[in-house]
């Protein structure tokens, strides 16, 4: 077996084994638990990077690495497929995982039981969802991810968590039912569950069955759109994310990406631009949903005073932007959106990580009163009637926090010069400059919404920043732990790296988007990977299928 | 001896388990007997903390008792069935009956409860805390004293022989 193929299972099996090991470590051994957790996360990142490296440097059929679990050929066994898109997502997960695991080591595991095992199981679920090439296996990994996320969301308990958690779980249980129904319909129509096989069989579906196929796809899409927090299916997100403990919320930023990923992956596979009867089926709807989500998120950001709510709505903004950009059908826009995905994931995640430390600086007075609640006093600018004109120095921890907050704000709002801006600029140039899809009203709406979301985010974050860092009353110099700062640094550092190496990354995502728009290589790679003849399967294959 | 006892805390149970295993396996091949022995010996050891050694004796008494019950079951079935069918015309003398107990062994009592359950026409309703009496609901007992005497003789006495 190709050693690279063996590598593909690492992002799934590694966290699972780590979770098992962590279960054997007593809760009282916190340091040991944290170390194992961090180590496992780092190892996961390393594996992801190795996969990315392989996928990026391999050419031809090798560029899609396939691992046939249980040694059964597609479409019969479950194939894990690491292509450019999966590899990219894995790395994103890895980096956020390392960041949040560092952060959690500051003591977050103490608020409840089994934080670390659940953390690793969540990583396992997300990675599995990104890797799997089988629809039902996707469901299973969704469930792995969700099961762990329920636990993490409720970590620490308390009424806000339980209330929002209950809603979150209820919605997701419903979504899981929808997933199963959609899946079953697809199986009923095509008799297969392998994504590659489905992609190959969609063009052969007779016209009389297209309705069923489309209905199945629509129901399936519902499950993903709920995960992706698309409006109007996203009311659960903000309460759940804001109630969750800080590192959990930061980790959850990844989960909406899984929904977006699933939509993207299946949409591109099932209804590629080349297929005749169902070409890009549902595209306009996705576009509309994306735009609505973007608008909703932007309004939500603007309406939010609390930092965690801003971050949560930013997650929605991200989802809307991604969905709308992908749905334009333009390769350049998809490439830019992928770039944006990376940047925004890190940024929002970092923002979530900062919510709690930033609140440590909050003064009593400003904790109560949002800046916009009252009109300012009558114009009164004469200096001698005001506070003395002497500045105050920031304590080092506040200064560091403030700088990090500023960087985060720039990234989330998409303001220059960091990768947030680059990604937005890339999306803008892509949607305006797409030759295949000349600018239409949706282009202008998307453009306006993108800029508005930036503006609204700026307004909100400035408001929050002023409230926390520029409080006029007494301010407390927060105590920052090294691991906490390290966690934020990891994520922001990743963004800085993304800013500096923007072009290689964009070239990577462009290649990814190009590849996504023509699913043939994916299908060929999956079907072109033979199982290894071995002791149990000497005379393989025994039964040919039609 | 102690080793044997530890290995085979309740031989009757082990025999029963072996029988169940072979019945389940639907085969008496060597392989299944070996497996069954492993299970029959291993499982009682596993559950020994739950299961105090049984004092059941007299295998023939057990067999006789079983056959007796089987016969009574068939008979009572017919009685109750017939009673249900002609319910509109004839009401049986159903009543609660307190039966003073001499049997104290928990396992014996459990078997007694199984018997009352299996035999239609009697429903075990309550057991005194000190196990000195039980309350039965009887489908048709025209004469209470007669019923008590018959019940004790027919069902309780053999159990005392087996378990005490």
């Amino acid at each position: 077996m190709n050693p690279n193929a063996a590598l593909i299972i690492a992002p799934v099996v590694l966290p699972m084994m780590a979770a098992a090991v962590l279960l054997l470590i007593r809760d009282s051994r916190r340091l040991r638990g944290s170390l194992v957790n961090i180590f496992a996360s780092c190892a996961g990142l390393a594996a992801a990077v190795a996969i990315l490296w392989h996928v990026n440097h391999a050419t031809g059929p090798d560029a899609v690495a396939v691992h046939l679990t249980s040694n059964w050929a597609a479409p019969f066994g479950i194939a894990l497929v690491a292509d450019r898109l999966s590899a990219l997502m894995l790395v994103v997960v890895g980096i956020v995982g390392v960041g949040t695991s560092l952060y959690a080591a500051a003591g977050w595991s103490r608020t409840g039981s089994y934080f670390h095992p659940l953390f690793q199981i969540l990583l396992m679920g997300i990675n599995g969802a990104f890797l799997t090439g089988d629809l039902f296996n996707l469901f299973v990994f969704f469930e792995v991810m969700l099961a762990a996320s329920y636990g993490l969301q409720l970590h620490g308990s308390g009424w806000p968590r339980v209330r929002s958690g209950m809603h979150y779980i209820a919605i997701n249980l419903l979504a899981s039912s929808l997933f199963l129904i959609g899946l079953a319909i697809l199986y009923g129509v095509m008799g297969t569950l392998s994504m590659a096989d489905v992609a190959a069989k969609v063009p052969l579906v007779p016209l009389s069955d297209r309705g069923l196929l489309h209905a199945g796809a629509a129901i399936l899409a519902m499950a993903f759109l709920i995960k992706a927090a698309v409006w109007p299916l996203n009311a659960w997100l903000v309460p759940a994310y804001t109630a969750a403990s800080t590192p959990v919320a930061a980790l959850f930023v990844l989960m909406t990406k899984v929904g977006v990923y699933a939509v993207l992956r299946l949409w591109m596979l099932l209804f590629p631009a080349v297929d005749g009867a169902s070409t890009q089926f549902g595209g306009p709807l996705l576009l509309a949903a994306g735009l609505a989500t973007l608008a909703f998120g932007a309004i939500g950001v603007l309406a939010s005073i609390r930092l965690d709510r801003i971050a949560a709505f930013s997650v929605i903004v991200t989802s809307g932007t991604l969905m709308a950009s992908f749905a334009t059908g333009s390769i350049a826009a998809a490439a830019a959106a992928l770039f944006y995905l990376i940047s925004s994931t890190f940024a929002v995640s970092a923002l979530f990580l900062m919510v709690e430390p930033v609140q440590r600086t909050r003064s009593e007075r400003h904790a109560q009163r949002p800046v916009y609640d009252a009109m300012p006093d009558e114009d009164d600018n004469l200096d001698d009637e005001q506070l003395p004109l002497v500045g105050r120095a920031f304590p080092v921890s506040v200064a560091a926090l403030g700088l990090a907050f500023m960087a985060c704000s720039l990234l989330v709002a998409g303001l220059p010069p960091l990768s947030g801006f680059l990604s937005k600029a890339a999306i803008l140039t892509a949607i305006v400059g797409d030759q295949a899809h000349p600018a239409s009203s949706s282009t202008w709406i998307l453009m306006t919404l993108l800029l508005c979301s930036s503006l609204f985010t700026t307004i909100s974050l400035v408001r929050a920043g002023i409230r926390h860092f520029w409080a006029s009353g007494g301010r407390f110099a927060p105590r920052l732990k090294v691991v906490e700062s390290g966690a934020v640094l990891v994520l922001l550092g990743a963004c800085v790296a993304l800013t500096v190496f923007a072009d290689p990354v964009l070239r990577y995502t462009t290649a990814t988007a190009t590849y996504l728009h023509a699913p043939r290589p994916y299908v060929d790679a999956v079907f072109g990977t033979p199982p290894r003849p071995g002791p149990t399967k000497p005379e393989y294959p025994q039964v040919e299928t039609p | 001896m102690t080793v044997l006892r530890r290995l085979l805390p309740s031989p009757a149970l082990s025999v029963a388990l072996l029988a169940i295993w072979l019945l389940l396996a639907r085969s008496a091949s060597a392989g299944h007997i070996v497996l069954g022995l492993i299970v029959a010996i291993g499982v009682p050891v596993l559950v020994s903390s739950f299961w105090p050694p049984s004092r059941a004796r007299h295998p023939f008494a057990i067999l006789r008792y079983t056959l007796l019950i089987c016969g009574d079951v068939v008979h009572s079935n017919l009685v109750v069935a017939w009673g249900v069918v002609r319910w509109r015309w004839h009401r049986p003398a159903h009543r609660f009956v307190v039966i003073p107990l001499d049997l104290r062994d928990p396992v014996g009592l459990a078997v007694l409860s199984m018997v009352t359950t299996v035999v239609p026409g009697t429903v075990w309703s309550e057991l005194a805390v000190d196990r000195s009496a039980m309350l039965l609901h009887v489908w048709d007992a025209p004469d209470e004293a007669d019923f008590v005497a018959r019940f004790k003789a027919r069902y309780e006495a053999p159990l005392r022989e087996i378990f005490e």
Partner: protein
Amino acid sequence: MTSISLLALVALPFIGSLLAAVLPTRSRTLIAAFAGMIAAVVSVVLLTSFPMVRGGGVIRETIHWMPSIGLDLAFRLDGFAWMFAVMISVIGVLVCLYARYYMSPEDPAARFYAMLLAFMGAMLGVVMSGNLLQLVVFWELTSLASFLLIGYWYHRTDAQRGARMALVVTGAGGLCLLAGVVLLGQIVGSFQLDDVLASGDRIKAHAWYPATLALIAIGALTKSAQFPFHFWLPRAMAAPTPVSAYLHSATMVKAGVFLLARFWPVLSGTDEWFWLIGGAGGITLLLGAYLAMFQNDLKRLLAYSTISHLGLITLLLGLNSPLAAVAAVFHIMNHATFKASLFMAAGIVDHETGTRDLRRLNGLIRSMPRTGALALIATAAMAGVPLLNGFLSKEMFFSETVFLSASPVIEWTLPVLATVASLFAVVYSLRFGYDIFFGPPSTDLPRTPEEAPRWMRMPIFFLVTACVIVGVAPTFAIGKVLDAAALPVVGGTLPAYSLALWHGFNLPLAMSLVAIGGGIVGYVWLRAMQERGRLVLPPLISRWNGRELFESTMLAITRGARDVLNACTTRHLQPQLFIVIATSVVLASFAARGFTLSWGDRPRVPASYAFVVLWIIGMICAVGAAATAKYHRLVAITLMGGAGLVTCLTFAWFSAPDLALTQIVVEVVTTMLFLLGLRWLPMRMEKPGERATLRDRARRVRDLALAVVVGGGLATLSFAFLTRPAPQSISPFFLGNALPGGGGTNVVNVMLVDFRAFDTMGEITVLGAVGLTVYALLRRFRPPAESIAQPDQQRAVPQERATDLMKPRRSDAFARGYLLVPSVIARLLMPVALVVAAHYFLRGHNEPGGGFVAGLIVAIALLMQYIVSGTRWVEARTRVRPTRWIAIGLLIAGLTGLGSVALGYPFMTTHTAHVTLPVLGEVHLPSAAFFDLAVLGVVVGSTLLILTALAHQSIRKQAPAPHPSTTGGRP
């Protein structure tokens, strides 16, 4: 010098900023010297590079950053940019020097100079950008830096508000600029400034031109504080005065006019340009001057004057005339010099007297004659007094307005407007100059004014000297620079113009005289009126306050956003679920349109009346459960059991024995779970007289309708599939390969442990995760108050009478009382259950069964012990450690999978060991059996973890100390 690195030039201030930030914050002299040095180095390098940009020379430097989207770090220095860069750096040096004396020793200097340097770097970046996207980058950086500078004294409310307003307005403008730039880049096909400057015709002919122009104009106008975005600038006065001096003269606000001038060659020359840019400039010119007359705060007066002067520059650029453009460039320079010096002077006054109120300041010329003299000269320049630089550019402006050929209305209005604005300028200049320095000296000032230190006056002196030199000998002093700077602006051919002081008696001169004369009269009149308490606030528009408008707009959109949000989302679960379901229905029906339900020709399942009846029972149970779940929970659970049973029978009937087995054991465990939970739910009693409200009933009807639609939809779909011929399925492969390849005859089990073992691995992980979650949640469980007490049933037992209804005890061999017999039976069942579990486990691969069912059997048997003997009894006898079961199960699963990897096969590849044993003969030991063992472990562990965690609540509630972490015990 033959070449300079523009990148280094731009980077230098940023690097300096970083260094300054880490210097000790109180050592202000050191930091000021350091910052000044940086600015000085930049200035010197720039000044020496003048020969390279003369006569259309351009220095370029490009570093690739993101060529894929056309964004490169392209630096480009032509004459115009050079002029700006010099202005920025030289005034930067002066501001550094000035700030050293202005700022208090307590002010954190590191932060101040770090930001100032960053701001300088950003401005340099803007003016030297050779790439439009890069320009936007630096543009927004200036907004950001200015935000931090304005908010330097962040503890003051006015600083917070001013900074925020500046950032929001200019940041928003920047975003519009970004949009405009993107469009422009799209029209041109490149973001390189050189390419854009060469494509003027194409741009103006493009359909997107108006939109592009509007977007770029918004960017420029917000930055330059032009009407209607002018209101942020006076607010920015909350900044320390050196910052104001810098922002108002050479930087921030000038970035806007820089942009207009930069794009002048390609965007101007159209009516749209004239009306948009010229209109905004004209209005701002007049409005700014008008408002400035009524200000009582020194800095605010200057701020409105800045607005007005920038309006003048904008208007000049908007006139579509090359000569006007040259005048604009000239005025940019002039305004920078006098405005910087005026702010510095105002700062000194403020610093020395402790107030900036014009009404309180009087006769300062006596106490600070040198500062006064300098300030007066600068004021005269601002007012456009001859022999000073302000006069020259104003004259150029006047002549442009006079000689402009346009529609008659404009030909008449413009000169009038120019004269009136100029008149206003004279009035406010007089207010600034005369009110402060002349008249009887004030006595009630907070501080006794003295002459400022020499080095603090030095920058003013330098600037005022420049004003005078330019004013007296313009061609000599500035001619070449102006030529070089204006050339790129007008796009290649410089129009003929003269910088002469004297053009003879002409209309512009007359206008100047009218303005000066009228201004003096106006000043006297205004002063008289104000002394009588009238005209204190600007007439006509005093109520119309841009700042208030901004604040209330912000408030309104925040509130509006909140309202929209509340309308678009919900905190309640029911509407959310309704939306999800309804959307699914709508989407699915929309997607399925065109599909016609046919009766299909698949062979029908033979009718079985038994199943007709059973299914009817199932449906009744389902509906019954739905109807009773509100008030009769136990009934609902019972009915749900019935429905589950029918489901199980259906599986059994349709040849799915594995499913039937699994369903039945899961059914049992689920019921137990519900029963355990029921203990903690409140009793709900149906109130007989209670009637639902109309709204409730409407909601019920709505939900019922949706439920019927969903049910109908599901039924239709499944009917469609039940009657259609089956598709080409991959299933025959499994049937064919289960035995030869998977080593088992039970295809479903082989799928679970071999073909799709990866699914099963995920599935047991789900189970484990849920178990952990439940345990974690219950450790923090806080039972509701009314459930903590003993259940009614237990309280109903008369305490004084012996009864068999007693709790199980820890020590007894068997339970007592009513549980005696059940406990004997349950214990008897335990070994039987284990044997049965072993049976199902071992045969799973070939017959129905397997690890999952076996695991649940074990769990149920243990659960039974809990029921009859109580938690304490069971746990005193056996140490069930569910977590360990889960952990070991997962480890076995992972290791089984990895074992095959170690052998060089894919994950989870089944290997079978063939062992020949004495009695048993050949034994096949597939690795799948280990995996099934893992399943068993996790299932037992998770199920027990869940159930016992729930069960523990009953003993916990009686514990006196309800500390969550101490009770429950570690499983």
